[in-house]
């Protein structure tokens, strides 16, 4: 099992967000976490990535059999956890290429792989950029600075392509994207999907799932998973709205 979440309770600023969440994810799977606003789906992604604002009150998260919550965010990343941010952060003065090479080499150092010098890395980056149809002119620009919403999301998927995670958490990656950008991002994710990794799509809308087809759909409401099913559940949700699951859960 790649990831196993047992009875997880999470709070932010003393307010409980997740209240007894259970989830199992294995390699080769695509999971969709859906739910209304405030249900705790972004909290789940952030707590798995190790965001310092979230406090785990109770419960357990096992990643490849190890206690994930014991690890610092950077250790998690080097172990293969990746979160694509809903709102990617701008890092002025640091070029995309510089940043990504540092991240890549840190991971290689950790895994005993080969570190790359700027020229070698540039080749890798050019190759990976094709996955999200990104212009190499973006490599020299400061990380996310002045990028449009769609460019930022593509840049997140480019980072995912370079870092090759085992567990990719895509937090509302579809938000703010027009249909063309959505297609590019989704096709990128589909190319990165493999038997060696798992992808977790955190999303409010079913739209993204037309392009990235999930094996499992989990519906969150009030901090717990209230309904689970296959891809057809997402379609049913789209038709009936979230009130339906909320009522069904009671």
């Amino acid at each position, binding site marked *: 099992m790649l990831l196993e979440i047992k009875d997880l309770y999470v709070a932010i600023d003393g307010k409980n967000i997740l209240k007894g969440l259970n989830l199992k994810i294995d390699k080769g799977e695509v999971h969709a976490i859906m739910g209304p606003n405030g249900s705790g789906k972004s909290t789940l992604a952030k707590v798995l*990535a*190790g*965001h*310092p604002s979230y406090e785990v009150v109770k419960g357990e998260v096992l990643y490849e059999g190890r206690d994930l919550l014991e690890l*610092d*965010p*950077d250790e*998690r*990343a*080097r172990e293969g956890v*990746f*979160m694509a*941010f809903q709102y*990617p*952060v*701008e*890092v*002025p*003065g*640091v070029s995309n290429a*510089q*940043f*990504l090479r*540092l*991240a890549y*080499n*840190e*991971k290689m*150092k*950790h895994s005993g792989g080969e*570190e790359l010098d700027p020229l070698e890395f540039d080749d890798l980056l050019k190759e990976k950029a094709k996955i999200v149809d990104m212009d190499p002119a973006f490599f020299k620009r*400061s990380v996310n600075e002045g990028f449009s919403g769609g460019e930022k999301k593509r840049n997140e998927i480019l*980072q995912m392509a370079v*870092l090759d995670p085992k567990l990719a958490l895509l937090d509302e990656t579809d938000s703010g994207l027009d249909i063309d950008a959505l297609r590019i991002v989704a096709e990128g994710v589909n190319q990165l999907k493999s038997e060696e990794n798992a992808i977790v799509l955190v999303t409010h809308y079913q739209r993204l799932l037309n392009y990235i087809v999930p094996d499992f759909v989990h519906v969150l409401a009030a901090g717990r998973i209230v309904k689970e099913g296959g891809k057809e559940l997402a379609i049913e949700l789209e038709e009936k709205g979230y009130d339906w699951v909320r009522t069904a859960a009671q």
Partner: protein
Amino acid sequence: MSTKAGMQTAFSSEFEKSISGSDQPDWVKEIRREAFADFVDKGFPTVRDEEWKYTNVAAIAKADWKTVAGEEAERAAASIDLSREIFSEIDGSNRIVFVDGVFCESISAMPEGITAVHFKEAYGEAAFRENFAKIVDPRKNGFTALNTAFAGEGIFLRAEKNRKTEDAINLVFIGLSESAGFPRVLYVGETGSEAELVEHYLRAEETAYLSNAVVEVRLADQARLVHTRVQRESNSAFHIVTSQTELGRGAVYDNTNIHLGGKLSRHDLGMGFSAEGAEGWIDGLYLVDEDQHTDTHSRIDHRIPNCVSHQTYKGILDGKSRAVFNGKVFVHEKARGTDAYQQNKNLLLSNDARVDTKPQLEIFNDDVKCAHGATVGQLEEEELFYLLSRGLNEDLARNLLTYGFAEEVINKIKVPSIKKALDEAVLNRLHARLDA
């Protein structure tokens, strides 16, 4: 009062020695005498002076400064190894070198495509007479008065009409012995001229010297100047520089000031417009540590309609260092259509560091576009988490963000040797390597 009397005696004999042996024309000597009298009257500024409230120069006032004579400087210059790392930022075909405030021809290589002469060869030039000691007011403060009193060692630069100077002109000020130096620069860019000027303030030794410079710049109509100042003085040195630039119609001035060195550094800079349609950038970065003190006082005067000024100053402070930023932008009554932007952002890496920032915008015309602001803070937690979430360890992530903060200013500098030297200096200062 005792301080003043002390200074008078300390500098009087040096001044007399300097002016009596000088073969300058009388009109120059007269300006120098007046300036010295003014210095004797004023003395060095004290913290009671509003403009010097946070910067105490008592250590400069108390010291018994000597000045270095021409032959002495030339002899000393021979001992300087210009191939050393610290000088690697000086690249290109030319270098105009001052040692302890004295121009040293023997280790200089004069630039081509521009008039670049020692003051003594410039006194006859109309452009010199019209501008010398007229752009920076000698009476501004004790330092400008003292510099003017000792004005002998200077370089006059004149870019000819419509002429573009290809290579950046390097002015190199090297601090070597425990002495006071008073270098001066006068740059006149004629109509339509274009040039790039770099001032390098570097140390040959970690000595406690005083570098008190005055830089005057006048740009005629449509003239362009890229002006970079890199200050990497000895960490025991006192660095005081006063600069002022006046822009003609449609002139473009792009100025970047980097302050890394000095025990105490103070930069007074000004920009003024003499005709419409001119645009100026005055940007800077100060990066200090331990017990360093750095102070930037700037003044941008919009007296003429339709001119543009941009100012971004960033500071990074570690250790017990201290920074002062005081930025005045005056938009006078007649200056309609002014576009003025000013920002000062500071990053504190230590709890013991301190910054006093005062952006000051005064507007006396309604038809203008103006913005200003100042921030003092630590690294953004969300930025830090973003980097951590990509696998960078915390030290590396913090250093990368700090480096990025500095790079926003350093990236303006296009001369590769300077950019490289500054990248390295910033990383050294952060005790960091970004190459994992």
